[in-house]
């Protein structure tokens, strides 16, 4: 067909269509799709009269490709089937199944899944959860796997819903918190209704019988609130007291119980003030603060769990034996079929495919991968069957590391957070003292308000904001970074990154792609450049050497009997002539020098006679120029390289980096870093190779750029997984923002308490205002930290 068609994208999955594609009629219009899988998905969607999905999707979906897969060929299906079936639970009048659908990207997907499932007679109820990417169905009279196949028929992939224990606990906690919050909210409104009548009437304005009735009614409502809704506070306070410490729950619980107890006594006695309205409102407002906090933790947990669920449970060795993914060790050679998840970090040994690493980098565009390419466990193999050799063992997979880091970063506390924790304890003691002093003081001064003033002091102080200030910001920041392709390996990294003054780049593989490209062709004989390229391409077609990539092109020539001479070159027959391609002393009998000194030169020869020189150069990363320019505005940018001087200066000239050190050994690089540090500069080192590992470890902060080796990854504080240098200035800016947010939070917490406690002691703050102030203060701190969910 026409040329433009070859660039067309699939109507369903939005992947580029190779070749002709297939056509399908949807809602009266002809559309192009790329494969039979998509074709049947479109047909099914159309048959169910749900073609609106495409229109909704275009409105809501911000990504550009949906991962395409053909789950019917999934070899790990047996495993998965078992796991899914074991998660089927029986509910009243049927069964209930919950599965994870990682492809859910926007509200349009949830709409499609829900609407399709609801059209089925056997599905009674179906709820999709956009945040957790989970579908829960209640059904009867159907094989659960049929429903799974049905969802897959819509073009989504289905994973068993592996819910970690931590997640289950958090989910349950959130649910019970919500129930407590609701009970407190509804009860609070009603108690307030009774209380307002008393306020409006004024003292003695209401007949004692009615007043007493309303007190009893308030008591009836306040009791479950104090016992049930405020339960977590009492529990926390009791735990603190038993361990002889003072936590945030102590003043809260004390205030609730004291106010409720006094009101109870006054109600029974039929005289004196009651504080049921304060108690209920206070509990309600505090619970709002707690609820938001739990929500933020839950979001973090679920993003972490999502990465866990990406890992396939088992892997297939080339020998045909299936092993558990946790037992994979370096050197295992594994088969990965199209549509499966890659079970190990390693290198492709056979086959080419498209891979989606969206889970690591947030980048949904599929990446082309062939022999020699590095792949990550947990990424999706979208198209071809491949063989992968694991380069590291299970516990060293990037994905396992990420899980580990999550654990660490949640428990990690920056220096000032530790201080704040200790401070908070003393602070609580101070508050208890201040509250009793105020209550006693005002009582002796003859004020009838003494009790509410004491209450207000207890309630208004907000040690929670003080100890929440940093941990919340950190947890949010770490997960945001991960979603943007930067995995942080060390908690203090963000703190140190924010202080960086000088940035050192490694050249090869960091500023350049590390993949050579043909820069010059110098024919030496009667041969055209095209001819020379064709022959070279044919010779290198089978080679896995990095240099071979430079020659990748469609060639009409076929080489026979190709032999690879490691470290030298390749030899083979084209037509009736024998060609050699490689180092000049390998290709030619006569020793001839390359036409120029800079760059890498390799020679093509026929029967020992030189034919053409190929000058290879390592290509600069397309974004390197932009990134270096923008960094130069505020940092000293330096380039370190082990390569020859001329080559280094050429690239440095292009990038306008003035400070270049060439021909450096790994020790030189470390020395260079130390020298800069000795001058008082905080140095950020960015590198990718084994030769940078020591320098990465020596630097004040370091980032490794898609390293091929675990040693490099461990030496660096953080790993950039998608090799997009743009993320570096972004990360530095982000680290500074994190620092600013933490400072803001601490400043707010300190300022709030300094202002508000004296006011409360002076009797200017009613207990309900105090509760509102305290909750607002914690919520503010959490919300401020939540701003870090976006990187820019």
């Amino acid at each position: 067909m026409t040329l433009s068609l070859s660039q067309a994208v699939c109507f369903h999955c939005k992947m580029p269509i190779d070749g002709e594609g297939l056509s399908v009629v949807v809602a009266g219009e002809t559309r192009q799709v790329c494969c039979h899988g998509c074709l049947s998905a479109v047909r099914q969607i159309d048959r169910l009269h749900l073609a609106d999905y495409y229109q909704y999707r275009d409105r809501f979906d911000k990504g550009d490709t949906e991962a395409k897969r053909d789950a019917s060929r999934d070899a790990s299906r047996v495993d998965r089937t078992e796991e899914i079936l074991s998660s089927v639970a029986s509910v009243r009048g049927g069964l209930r199944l919950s599965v994870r659908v990682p492809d859910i990207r926007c509200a349009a997907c949830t709409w499609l899944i829900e609407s399709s499932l609801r059209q089925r007679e056997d599905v009674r109820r179906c709820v999709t959860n956009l945040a957790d990417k989970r579908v829960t169905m209640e059904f009867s009279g159907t094989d659960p796997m049929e429903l799974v196949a049905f969802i897959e028929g819509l073009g989504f992939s289905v994973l068993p819903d592996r819910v970690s224990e931590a997640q289950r606990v958090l989910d349950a906690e959130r649910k019970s918190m919500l129930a407590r919050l609701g009970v407190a909210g509804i009860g609070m409104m009603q108690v307030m209704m009774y209380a307002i009548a008393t306020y409006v009437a004024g003292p003695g304005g209401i007949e004692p019988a009615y007043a007493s009735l309303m007190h009893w009614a308030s008591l009836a409502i306040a009791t479950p609130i104090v016992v049930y809704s405020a339960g977590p506070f009492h529990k926390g306070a009791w735990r603190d007291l038993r361990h002889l410490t003072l936590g945030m729950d102590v003043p809260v619980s004390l205030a609730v119980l004291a106010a409720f107890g006094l009101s109870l006594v006054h109600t029974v006695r039929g005289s004196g003030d009651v504080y049921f309205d304060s108690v209920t409102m206070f509990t309600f407002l505090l619970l709002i603060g707690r609820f938001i906090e739990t929500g933020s933790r839950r979001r973090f947990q679920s993003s972490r769990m999502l990465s866990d669920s990406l890992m396939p449970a088992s892997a297939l060795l080339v020998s045909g034996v299936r092993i558990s993914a946790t037992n994979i060790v370096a050197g295992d050679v594994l088969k990965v079929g199209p549509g499966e998840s890659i079970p190990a970090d390693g290198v492709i040994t056979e086959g080419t495919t498209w891979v989606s690493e969206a889970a690591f980098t947030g980048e949904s565009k599929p990446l082309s991968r062939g022999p020699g390419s590095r792949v990550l466990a947990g990424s999706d193999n979208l198209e071809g069957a491949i063989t992968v050799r694991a380069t590291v063992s299970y516990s060293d997979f990037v994905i396992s590391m990420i899980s580990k880091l999550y654990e660490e970063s949640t428990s990690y506390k920056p220096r000032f957070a530790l201080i704040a924790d200790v401070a908070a304890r003393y602070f609580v003691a101070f508050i208890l003292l201040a509250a009793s002093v105020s209550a006693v003081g005002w009582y002796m001064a003859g004020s009838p308000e003494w009790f509410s003033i004491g209450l207000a002091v207890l309630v208004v102080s907000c040690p929670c904001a003080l100890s929440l200030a940093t941990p919340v910001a950190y947890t949010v920041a770490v997960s945001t970074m991960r979603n943007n392709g930067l995995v942080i390996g060390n908690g203090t990294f963000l703190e140190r990154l924010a202080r960086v003054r000088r940035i050192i780049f490694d050249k090869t593989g960091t500023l350049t792609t590390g993949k050579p490209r043909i820069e010059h062709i110098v024919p030496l004989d009667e041969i055209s450049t095209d001819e020379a390229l064709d022959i070279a391409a044919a010779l290198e077609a089978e080679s896995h050497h990095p240099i071979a990539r430079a020659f990748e092109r469609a060639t009409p020539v076929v080489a026979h009997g190709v032999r690879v001479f490691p470290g030298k070159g390749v030899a083979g027959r084209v037509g009736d002539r024998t060609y050699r391609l490689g180092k000049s002393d390998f290709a030619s009998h006569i020793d001839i020098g390359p036409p120029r000194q800079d760059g890498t030169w390799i020679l093509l020869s026929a029967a020992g006679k030189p034919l053409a020189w190929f000058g290879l150069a390592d290509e600069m990363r397309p974004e390197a120029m932009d990134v270096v320019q923008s960094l130069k505005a505020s940092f000293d940018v330096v380039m370190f390289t082990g390569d020859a001087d001329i080559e280094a200066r050429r690239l440095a000239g292009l990038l306008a980096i003035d400070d270049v050190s060439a021909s450096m050994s790994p020790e030189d690089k470390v020395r260079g870093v130390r020298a800069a540090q000795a001058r008082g500069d905080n140095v950020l080192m960015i590198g990718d190779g084994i030769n940078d590992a020591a320098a990465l470890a020596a630097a004040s902060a370091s980032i490794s750029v898609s390293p091929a080796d675990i040693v490099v990854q461990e030496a660096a504080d953080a790993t950039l997984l998608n090799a997009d240098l743009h993320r570096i200035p972004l990360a530095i800016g982000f680290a500074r923002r994190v620092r600013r947010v933490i400072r803001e939070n601490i400043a707010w917490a300190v300022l709030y308490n300094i202002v508000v406690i004296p006011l409360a002691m002076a009797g200017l703050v009613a207990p309900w205002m105090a509760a509102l102030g305290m909750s607002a203060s914690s919520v503010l701190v959490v919300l401020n930290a939540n701003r870090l969910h976006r990187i820019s």
Partner: protein
Amino acid sequence: MEVIFVLIPISLVIVGGAVWAFVWSVRNDQFEDLEKQAYTILFDESDDKGGNST
């Protein structure tokens, strides 16, 4: 004003009902996903099973 002796107990019953309804809905996962609901208003409703929905 004696009616208040009837009204207040009634209000207690109503509050009890509201609390029960809320707790029931929490237990039945009505508040599971607070993100999606914001978009649902933008979707057209078509309840007829297998009917035409444009």
